[in-house]
């Protein structure tokens, strides 16, 4: 196992053990609601359902239909904030 792989495994373990991974996910979920992403996604789903008719849409169809736009709608500021939190955690715990 290379030194880098060892480091990755150690950091991943630390992230999980310290509950930081779950906190990061929670933070992102909260940010997605706060910035209106979730409402935009809901509206997008409603549009697809309206267009195709509820009797012609499965969950899989809908997920496939809204995923590309849903991903594109995540604001850069949210991604940046998450990255900064991760970077700060790694800086603190990578020794």
């Amino acid at each position: 196992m290379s030194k880098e792989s060892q480091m990755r495994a150690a950091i991943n373990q630390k992230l999980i053990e310290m509950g930081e991974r779950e906190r990061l996910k929670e933070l992102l979920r909260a940010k997605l609601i706060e910035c209106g992403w979730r409402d935009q996604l809901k509206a997008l789903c409603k549009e697809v359902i309206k267009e195709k008719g509820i009797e012609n849409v499965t969950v899989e169809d809908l997920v496939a239909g809204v995923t590309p736009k849903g991903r594109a709608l995540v604001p850069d500021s949210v991604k940046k904030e998450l990255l900064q939190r991760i970077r700060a955690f790694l800086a603190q715990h990578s020794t």
Partner: protein
Amino acid sequence: EEARRKEAFLDQFSGELCAKISDEVLTESIRATAEAEIRLALEEKAACIARCSAEECDSIVEETLAEQLAAMTQDILDNELRRICKFIK
């Protein structure tokens, strides 16, 4: 050199982790939202059908009562008039 390599590694690892966490959360959230919206649309459709059925039921009752009452009152009045005519004769 060692410190610079470590920084570069941490930058790269942060980016990968950020992408992974984002992917997990977005996949979860999109699915949960899609499921909720489908459930909501189905509930709305069921409620709409229920309302339309009730309206249709009222309309059938109204129409039938109107027809029944019109025929019945006509019959009764005709009979009454016949009875009176017979009485006068």
